[in-house]
């Protein structure tokens, strides 16, 4: 019992403290739908074009959508642990499961110009990320509207779009770019757990069947326990 109470309390209060990766903003909700095959495939094509040069997708070896988009094992980069100054681009097969779709969706859109950082750009979701801004050409250049030093105080209270301003327009409009990134996140979400499509389909059948079984067993149980109740009344009558 003691264990149970403590568990309940702890489960509710444990927060995710991240000392290395600092995030300053509230993540946006990514409007993804992995059941929409067309957007997943589109995202895979974007991924092939934009991400696959540096990031691998090593657990999507024989996946049908990935193959169709051209994401195949022989094109995947392999880095040793010393590449990129000891920060090789990570494999992204499980990134959404490890972070969340919302995190990735917000991260990819919140790069801003920061001459003080080695890549020339910094990020509101992951401060001092080693990842260069991949979207300068299509999104445009964003700048921070508040002093860098103020970020520490407003952490988690604002959205990224309230802190950044588009200085130069890229090849896409804001809406197009959001859709572009969202498709990509949709593919990443799909790649994190391709079983989820099959899972939810089978799940409804299994659970429906178990409910029927439960009802029949309950009726049978009540029928048997009728004996006990009658016997009880009988003996109390005497």
């Amino acid at each position: 019992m003691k264990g149970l109470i403590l568990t309940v309390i702890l489960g509710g209060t444990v927060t995710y403290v991240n000392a290395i990766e600092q995030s300053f903003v509230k993540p946006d909700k990514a409007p993804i739908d992995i059941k929409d095959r067309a957007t997943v495939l589109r995202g895979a094509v974007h991924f092939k074009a934009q991400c696959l040069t540096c990031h691998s997708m090593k657990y999507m070896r024989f996946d049908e959508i990935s193959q169709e988009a051209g994401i195949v094992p022989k094109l995947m980069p392999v880095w040793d642990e010393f590449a990129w100054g000891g920060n090789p681009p990570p494999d992204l097969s499980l990134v959404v499961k490890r972070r969340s779709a919302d995190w990735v969706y917000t991260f990819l859109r919140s790069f801003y110009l920061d001459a003080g950082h080695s890549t020339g750009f910094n990020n509101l979701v992951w401060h001092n990320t080693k990842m260069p801004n991949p979207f300068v050409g299509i999104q445009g250049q964003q700048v921070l509207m508040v002093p860098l030093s103020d970020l520490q105080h407003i952490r988690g209270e604002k959205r990224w779009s309230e802190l950044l301003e588009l200085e130069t327009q890229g090849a896409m409009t804001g809406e197009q770019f959001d859709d572009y990134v969202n498709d990509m996140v949709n593919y990443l979400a799909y790649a994190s757990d391709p079983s989820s499509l099959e899972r939810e389909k089978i799940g409804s059948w299994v659970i429906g069947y178990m409910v029927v079984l439960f009802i029949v067993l309950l009726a049978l149980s009540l029928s048997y326990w009728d004996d006990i109740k009658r016997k009880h009344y009988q003996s109390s009558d005497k």
Partner: protein
Amino acid sequence: MSFNQWINSRLPISDFFDQHLRQYYAPKNLNFWYFFGSLAILCLSIQIISGIWLLMYYEPTAKTAFDSIEFMMREVPYGWLLRYVHAVGASSFFVILYFHLYRALMYGSYQRPRELLWLSGVLLLILAMAEAYTGYVLPWGQMSYWAAKVIMNIFGAIPFIGEPIMHLIQGDYVVSEVTLQRFFAFHVVAFPMILLAMVFLHLVALHTVGSNNPDGIEIKDNKGADGIPKDGVPFHPYFTIKDLVAAAAFLIIFFTIVFYNPTMDGLFLEKENFIPANPLVTPPEIKPSWYLAPYYAILRAVPNQLLGALAMISG
């Protein structure tokens, strides 16, 4: 009939069935708290069967453990199902064990004559924790690795002999592939065998002293002329069918989690465990699985490492 007699006179299966189910009398006032014993057996069976299947693709090496599980989940037909069933099954097992334990505490099932039933139950809980802990290390993700390390340090806190014992268990000066491989042996062979033997003893003790009940009445003290307890009900069919209803209800919840939220938003399968183990990078926060969390919280609440470990064990 004669075939049954032929079998039964050589191998008394139906006699055993009669003796332990049809002529085993349980108090008729058992309420829903008494479902959890049979549900624990159901959970254990699910774990053993899914575990055997997982073994067919799992590779216990530091290089391949993580990959082999992802491979199983993506490339093997229904690999994802077996893996999620095993992971959700572990957490469900503890939910059920904790309810079962709560029932025993609430109705005083540890009192005379059930002292050994209680003690074997406590041993079973500890064994289940050892089994779960060694199993949690096997995927060799970040949380597997660092949780293993933290718990190994608990052994290291024992004065004088702590460090040698720690090295003895992990087989290296740090948690490494050697540790993974011996944990694999413990998880897959040693602990399950002891666990099953203990379950057997637990059931032998139960069928000797009989079930307790919410009113605390010993049904054996009030027998009718036929030698049958007046307040007893034959276990079969009355409690077998009742337990089956409970099993169906449990499976509805169980499958809802397995099919719709198998990681339970990081409670059953932590987010950090989706990155392979890296001895050079500590995760921002190391937290053991929820079912071990209370003990870990006691450990952390006490600043002194040794005292903390002692408090945890006594807790």
